């Protein structure tokens, strides 16, 4: 424990220094971890409730935020890592802000968003009590070279989990993990009700996941299924139905995230889970930064939609594609975007054909226009410079609902500009 305190003190110091320099959020965590790799274990293991990890390729941030809200609505004190710092070091950095030198967190539960690539590293230090595993999709980021490898990492994470695992019944890479959980560990499920399975085409990429056969049919008592009523409203069925709910955030992806969060809240809270309270809570959760965020541009909505891999872009298009909204697409290829833009060819853009795309932008704006050309989608303009593109897009589409699909660094850039103009919350400031 002394060593832990020392590590935390050193980390806090580093945190102060890196803040003064305006540096990144991973440094203080790195300092602490170097001194005491067990710091996570020491600090988190003492929590009276447990440790819930949320992992998978798409939807981690939104789902984590919803799950935290659900647990807090049930009177639980929850520690969580802020949006976008989902590496082990980010978790430590977040803890440093909240814990006294004693190393005790003032919380019942930790609910942590874990990057797949870092899930194993985390699980080596700490055994989660619960794991919510969302999906495995090929991410465009170069560090996830192989989809099989990602599935393996999540399987290992499930093996390390001590009390309950929540799995996606519709993703065979995830559902087959049920065979790997430890003895006495409960398995709960979430998914899309078969009656609305037709909403899912394209959600799963054309890869080899189906070749290994289907998962065992889950027990309905432990299953939370998404029943979609219309574009905005849905119910999560299960032991007691949650809904109808209308989320702050639009789209099928958000509904699936809400279903996953509900299943995990049921697994964590057990008997004390209150369906009516859960429905009220889900309706109040605001979208995390960049996930379907709506910016008020002189009284008209501008939606910023982060796209980072084929499955995510496909879902976003399926949600938004047919609505009459003026569209811009901004594609960068920095490391944080994924340097390879090949993945754009694993997305079908046909739903944009009728409406067309007003503008493509970013370092790979011309490549995006080329991709659209091959899907027969008309592109009015190409302007690689993001500032010039945004200026023109807002000017020429004044007074109309607009939407920008963008990769990570393009989104950061555009949001900074929009924040300056329309007074948005600062980065990382995500009102709870």
């Amino acid at each position: 424990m002394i060593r832990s305190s020392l590590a935390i003190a050193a980390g806090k110091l580093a945190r102060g220094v890196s803040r003064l320099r305006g540096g990144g959020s991973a440094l203080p965590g790195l300092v602490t971890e170097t001194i005491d790799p067990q710091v996570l274990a020491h600090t988190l293991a003492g929590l009276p409730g447990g440790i819930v990890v949320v992992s998978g390729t798409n939807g981690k941030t939104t789902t984590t935020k919803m799950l935290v809200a659900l647990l807090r609505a049930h009177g639980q004190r929850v520690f969580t890592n802020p949006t976008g710092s989902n590496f082990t070091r980010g978790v430590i950095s977040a803890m440093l802000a909240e814990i006294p030198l004693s190393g005790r967190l003032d919380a019942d539960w930790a609910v942590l968003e874990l990057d797949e690539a870092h899930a194993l590293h985390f699980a080596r230090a700490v055994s989660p009590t619960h794991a919510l595993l969302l999906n495995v999709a090929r991410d465009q980021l170069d560090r996830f070279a192989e989809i099989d490898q990602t599935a393996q990492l999540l399987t290992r994470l499930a093996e390390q989990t001590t009390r309950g695992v929540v799995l996606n019944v519709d993703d065979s890479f995830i559902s087959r993990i049920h065979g790997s959980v430890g003895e006495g560990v409960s398995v709960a499920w979430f998914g899309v009700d078969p009656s609305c399975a037709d909403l899912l085409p394209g959600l799963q990429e054309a890869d080899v996941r189906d070749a290994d056969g289907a998962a065992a049919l889950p027990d309905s008592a432990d299953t939370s299924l998404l029943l979609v009523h219309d574009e905005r409203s849905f119910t999560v069925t299960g032991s007691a139905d949650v809904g109808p709910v209308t989320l702050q955030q639009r789209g099928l992806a958000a509904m699936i995230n809400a279903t996953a969060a509900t299943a995990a809240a049921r697994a964590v809270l057990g008997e004390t889970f209150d369906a009516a309270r859960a429905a009220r809570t889900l309706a109040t959760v605001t979208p995390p930064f960049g996930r379907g965020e709506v910016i008020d541009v002189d009284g008209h909505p501008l939606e910023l939609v982060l796209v980072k891999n084929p499955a995510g872009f496909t879902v976003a298009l399926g949600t938004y594609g047919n609505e009459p909204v003026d569209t811009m697409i901004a594609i960068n290829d920095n490391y944080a975007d994924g340097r390879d833009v090949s993945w754009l060819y694993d997305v079908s853009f046909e739903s944009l054909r009728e409406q067309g795309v007003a503008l493509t932008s970013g370092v790979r704006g011309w490549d995006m226009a080329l991709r659209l050309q091959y899907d027969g989608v008309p592109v009015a303009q190409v302007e690689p410079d993001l500032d010039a593109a945004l200026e023109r897009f807002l000017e020429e589409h004044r007074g109309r609902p607009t939407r920008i699909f963008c990769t990570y660094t393009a989104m950061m850039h555009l949001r900074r500009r929009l924040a300056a103009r329309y007074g948005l919350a600062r980065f990382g400031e995500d009102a709870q």
Partner: protein
Amino acid sequence: MTATADGGEPAVSKGTVHLVHLYPREMSIYGDLGNTRALASRLRWHGYSAVVHDHHPGAPWPEQVHLVLGGGGQDSGQARVQEDLAVQADRLRGLAADGVPMLMICGMYQLFGQAFVTAEGRRLPGLGILDVTTTGNPTRMIGPVVLDTPIGQVVGYENHSGATVLGEGQEPFGRVRHGQGNNGTDGTEGARTGNVIGSYLHGPILPANPALSDHLLELAATRATGSWEPAEVDDSIAEQAHQRQVRRLLRG
């Protein structure tokens, strides 16, 4: 096997060209199916009809084949196609020797070579259509690429762990101007024998390099119809995308 006619057939077709994509489920990672779609679209733009045959393991071979494509895959994907590839080996060698144009990317490029030697030293034989040998390598070669090739500069993106060495007298597909290429040391990328091209370039390679696309189509359409009568195609967007990559990567 499924055969799908590409939509929007021209009013008067100059002829029908049959494309085969080998193992689209197992071997088309990183958008390699975009190559097949690009060729089908371009055939239509040039006034031809295109039929795309998705060849899955165990399926019968299509009756007409004018061009064969293959892409990259994961190890599990390669393992799944190995058996069918052995069944089709003689046929593919025959078609290659007969001049059928083929484009094999990444994993399929490796399988078209003499052998793949695993990191543990196990030698897995390939089809031997291209005289190349690939050795498993712990460090991946990843990043954007520019090549000089006989049909002009080619841009793409490589992502492979195997290091490939050309056999004596084997022609490469191109010379590396930016990137790693076959092995990161000898400046070669890919391999080319007759009308068969192997390359590590994703991107996917064909949409951003229309000259390469039309080179393959010329060979395929000539086989199918006896001649190649291209139409005027507006490639200005592709040229912008292409030139920007070349400029940006060769600047440094």
